[in-house]
């Protein structure tokens, strides 16, 4: 209050400025001024490359052409038709799909189970549990991969030692064409569960208690309450979680790079990893085309999930 009276004469200098320019123009200038640094970086390093990638995918650009841009020729959709005949790419696409189709539901179910348990009666230790389950999420994937490679060692690894106690002869996990992918999926579920758990917990807490009480009065047991109250009320949150996880899993890359190098027999080679390999070989335009295919796959998956899980109103 005092400050305002002391500053009362201040608007005076603002008046002549306003006379030269309309209020609208000044607001626009200020806003675009605030936007400018972001926009410069954004156009250069994001919007530009998104367009350049599309153009690149329609040429035969290779790493050697960077010094001689005139040697680049337009080739139309050749890179895209080549993809359909590339058996390694098709294998990578199947692997990626496998990872998404098994990994997303597994992660969601685990996260939901823990969130429901946390929401039931656990009050004092909730922060403790939340931090514990969230730790894997904030951990570097490279560090995680190093640890899991150690855990999954066939002879000396703790996982197989544990299985031996139960009388099971564990597989060679990462060296086994059948078991390598399930091992990566398990690791991904472990790593990403915590994030979804926090999201689901927030969603669970926004469900009005009265609904449960009404269901209980109607004689609904715990399972019926979960199916008839929790699941429908949680639909928007579940949708968000599925979409985010799906987008992330479609791009999986670091896990196979550090743990299996895409092997054995290309069984853990993902699309992102194959893009990285082609980039390494200098096949820039081919890698760009694959990047766009992955982009389209992400958009399609997202739209499909929205259709399937849209909240019924």
């Amino acid at each position: 209050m005092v400050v305002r009276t002391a500053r009362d004469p201040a608007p005076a200098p603002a008046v002549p400025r306003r006379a030269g320019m309309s209020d609208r123009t000044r607001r626009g200038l200020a806003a675009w001024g605030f936007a400018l640094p972001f926009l410069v970086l954004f156009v250069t390093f994001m919007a530009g490359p998104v367009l350049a990638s599309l153009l690149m995918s329609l040429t035969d650009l290779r790493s050697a052409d960077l010094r001689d841009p005139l040697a680049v020729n337009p080739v139309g959709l050749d890179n895209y038709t080549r993809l359909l005949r590339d058996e390694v790419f098709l294998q990578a696409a199947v692997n990626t799909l496998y990872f998404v189709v098994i990994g997303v539901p597994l992660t969601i179910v685990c996260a939901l189970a823990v969130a429901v348990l946390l929401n039931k009666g656990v009050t004092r230790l909730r922060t403790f549990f939340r931090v514990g389950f969230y730790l894997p999420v904030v951990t570097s994937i490279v560090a995680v991969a190093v640890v899991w490679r150690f855990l999954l060692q066939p002879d000396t690894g703790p996982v197989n030692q544990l299985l031996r106690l139960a009388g099971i002869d564990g597989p060679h996990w990462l060296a086994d064409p059948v078991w390598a992918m399930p091992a990566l999926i398990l690791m991904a579920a472990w790593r990403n569960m915590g994030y979804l758990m926090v999201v689901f917990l927030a969603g669970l807490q926004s469900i009005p208690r009265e609904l449960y009480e009404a269901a209980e009065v109607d004689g609904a047991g715990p399972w019926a309450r979960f199916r008839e109250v929790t699941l429908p009320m949680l639909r928007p949150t579940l949708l968000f979680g599925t979409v985010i996880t799906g987008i992330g899993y479609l791009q999986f890359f670091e896990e196979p790079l550090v743990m299996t190098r895409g092997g054995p027999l290309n069984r853990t080679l993902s699309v992102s990893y194959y893009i990285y390999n082609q980039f390494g070989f200098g096949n820039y335009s081919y890698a760009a085309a694959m990047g766009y295919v992955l982009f389209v796959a992400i958009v399609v998956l997202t739209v499909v999930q929205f259709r399937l899980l849209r909240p019924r109103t």
Partner: protein
Amino acid sequence: MTAAVSGARGKRRAQSRSAGGRAWVVHAALAIALVAAASPFAWMLSGSVKTDAEIRRVPPTWLPDQATLDNYRELFERLDFTRYFVNSLIVTGAVTLGNLVFCSMLGYALAKIDFPGRRALFALVLGTLMVPGAVTFVPLFVLVSNLGLVDSYLGMILPFLAGPFGVFLMRQYISGLPDEVIDAARIDGAGQIRIFLRIVAPLARPALATLGILTFLGTWNSFLWPLVVAQSEEKYTLPVALALYSIGQNQTRFGLLLAGAVVVVVPVLVVFVALQRFFVQGIATTGLK
């Protein structure tokens, strides 16, 4: 609101008392799950202080017979982990600072200034949230190499100095600040820059903290881009160095690699545990509104 919350809490407490043993079952189930979730960290720590001979022993030991810091000594003395650590700090610090400044500036304009092009600009920011890294990756490398920034800090920093996620988060938070405060300042004759610095930035401190932590963690852990840009060992960040060692000639030296993992993970764990409440806020601001 407060009354409703504490009412519900009281009811829940009464319920769990009447349910008797059920709370114990829930706690036990959660504790088992938590042990499963946390045990890889325990193995990482215990393995990092074991000798090469002990880490190969069958059956494996939970705790090391004689703990040794040899693995850590080797990381910092024979290998150049001090340098990688400093590199990670430089890149992460610069990217975090850039995002805080640039994203909050645009976030403020989008939230509180009515100007032509506002909706289109916001749509543009939202639209790029979904673009996968694999799409921009190749042209970005061509661009960076044309600018002569391969194998430089700038090459690792510039492409990530201002991301759409930060704009989204800041815009969401600043939209929720009361207009009256800003109008009052404007009536007092404050210009937009002064309003942003003196009024909006201090009020948006929780969102800035969230964005700062999320950017710090994401950049500290980022791997693909530094792997491509850093071509000489002097420019490796920690994850790049660890990944290359783990697939190179040291790939069977698990004690050494686990110690490397500890060095990558510990700064993040410290930041996370100290500031974990901001994560929950961040998820609530971006995910569910």
